[in-house]
């Protein structure tokens, strides 16, 4: 049994970022295959198609540039890696008596995120490393700078 075009169209148009919705779908495998093909198409086209998003703007290289520019007093600077699990940002905010209890956020679909994570981590495409190379280099520099600043 296959899907009719209106069924597929309806299915795609009704996709939400809700895992409960996804869990109800009868054929998640078809959905996953379609998603993976689209992720692949998206990433392969990432370098030469319009990307109407600021989510890919450079960050780490700009921070390195700022920190090594001698324009700012590094004694005043605190740099927090929000992925390292140390909750340094939360600790800083609490120390400064800023209430962080009202910042509840809606997580993105973990199912979609896992599909993308699996694709990105298993991809042998040159595109992702090429896009992220300066970010990765700067990330390593920031980690080193952070250690230096903390042990000074």
């Amino acid at each position, binding site marked *: 049994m296959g899907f009719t075009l209106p069924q597929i169209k309806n299915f795609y148009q009704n996709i939400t970022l809700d895992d409960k919705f996804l869990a109800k779908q009868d054929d998640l495998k078809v959905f996953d295959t379609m998603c993976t093909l*689209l992720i692949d198409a998206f990433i392969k086209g990432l370098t030469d198609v319009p*990307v109407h998003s600021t989510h890919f703007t450079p960050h780490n290289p700009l921070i390195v540039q700022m920190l090594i520019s001698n324009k700012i007093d590094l004694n005043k600077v605190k740099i927090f890696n929000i992925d390292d699990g140390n909750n340094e940002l939360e600790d800083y905010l609490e120390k400064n008596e800023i209430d962080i209890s*009202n910042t509840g956020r809606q997580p993105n679909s973990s199912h979609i995120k896992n599909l993308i994570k699996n694709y990105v981590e298993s991809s042998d495409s040159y595109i992702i490393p090429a896009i992220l190379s300066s970010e990765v280099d700067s990330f390593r520099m920031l980690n080193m700078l952070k250690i230096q600043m903390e042990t000074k």
Partner: protein
Amino acid sequence: MSYKDTYHSLKVILTDKTFFIFNPKIGSRFMESLFDKPGVEFQFKNGNFSEVTSQRNGEITATYLKSVMAEWELIVTSKSKKDIVILYRDPLKRFITALTQIYFLEIYHLYQDILFVLIFQVWGLLYLK
């Protein structure tokens, strides 16, 4: 705007004690929700903040913009008394998070022309063999 010629910008939130610097997918939603105001998006050139690139349709007042720029001037002349808190993160994790978020918001519009071709390919592979 393509990835290649994307502009270089950073977001800033100024509080009584701190000059926070971050960017989309680097704590931005958390910070903006925490302080209940959008980060001011500045173009960042040659180690300096220059023009404002987004004012979110007037959500940010001119007075606030001036105070942010004035504080940056104090920072670069070592006269500021505020902490400078900079957020950063693993770029691969940021990439995955960003892609997850935009996936259903933007990819459909970008690829709607080929979407149904792909759907029919999958459909054909699975059900017409």
